[in-house]
């Protein structure tokens, strides 16, 4: 880490390992949304907090290199479009907007409950990206603040 931004080397090292655990936990929460408490919103925030962890530990410049912010925007919009898309497929298959058109499977299995896990994944991706973008844009604001008046 040649840049002097961010926190100390200890924090950076711990973050480098823990952030992946946070991501895995968030993904776990999202995938088991129809079986256990949690779901897309909870898991999405966990993922956003993981990004935030890296951001606080390593600083802005590292994030800029590590992530493609434009891509994150596209990901957010794409998951929203897919959400509406699943709704439209529901109209085509059963006549109801956002109908659960897939087979329901067996209760208590991971791959069950039709479209619910799919929607959970989309929500998780969207929430995770969107919340990180809020913090990102708020923090960008301080870079060259105070140019006016």
């Amino acid at each position, binding site marked *: 880490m040649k840049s002097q931004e961010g926190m100390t080397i200890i924090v950076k090292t711990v973050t480098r390992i823990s952030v992946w655990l946070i991501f895995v936990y968030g993904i776990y*929460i999202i995938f088991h*949304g*129809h*079986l*256990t*408490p*949690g*779901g897309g*919103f*909870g898991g999405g*925030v*966990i993922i*956003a*907090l993981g990004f*935030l962890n890296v951001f606080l530990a390593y600083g802005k410049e590292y994030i800029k290199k590590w992530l493609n*912010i*434009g891509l994150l*925007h596209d990901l*957010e919009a794409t998951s*929203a479009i897919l*959400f*509406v898309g699943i*709704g439209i497929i529901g109209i085509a298959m059963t006549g109801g*907007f*956002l109908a*659960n058109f897939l087979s*329901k*499977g*067996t*209760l*208590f299995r991971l791959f*069950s*409950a*039709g*479209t*619910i896990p799919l*929607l*959970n994944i989309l*929500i998780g991706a*969207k*929430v995770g990206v*969107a*919340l990180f*973008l*809020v*913090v*990102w*844009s*708020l*923090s*960008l*604001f*301080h*870079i*060259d603040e105070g*140019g*006016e008046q």
Partner: protein
Amino acid sequence: MPIETWLIFILGFMIVGSIMALEIKDLLSSIIAIGIVGLALSVAFLFLQAPDLAIVQFLFEIFAIIILILAFLKKEYHKKDDPSNTNKILTLVTVITLGAILFFSIDVFKALPAFGEPYMNTAKYYLENGATETGSANLVSAIILDYRAYDTLGEVTVLFTAILGALTIIRIKKKSSGTEEDVV
């Protein structure tokens, strides 16, 4: 201890915490006080058998505090602690009005079903058929993503709009061109 006693304790704590958060002069302390109130709410959700909400409230509270601290705890904001002269008369009138509202609204709470005995006409259907009809063991997920998925579409859109709105509000001035540019 019965659950009501616990909840009275938690709610009293939340009220005291909120008043403290509003009356404390130091900014960091009041943000942290709000954070504690939010976490107490998350505990209250656990007592009220809503683990989904407890998780989401807990995480969103952390997130809200991070946003507030990142945005407001810059050095320059602490330049001068400017205790704006609080208008005593306004405060008094507000407190009396709110007290009157509280006094007159006690009746409506008497008319509602007592705590712990909801009607649950609609909910009965969800509890009996929810799992078989949607295949989801978590009935809250079944409601938000199947029975009322349209609400969730709205919710996702609300979040999207909020982010887009925040990005629109925060547009950084590029020094070279002098025009407002989109940064992201």
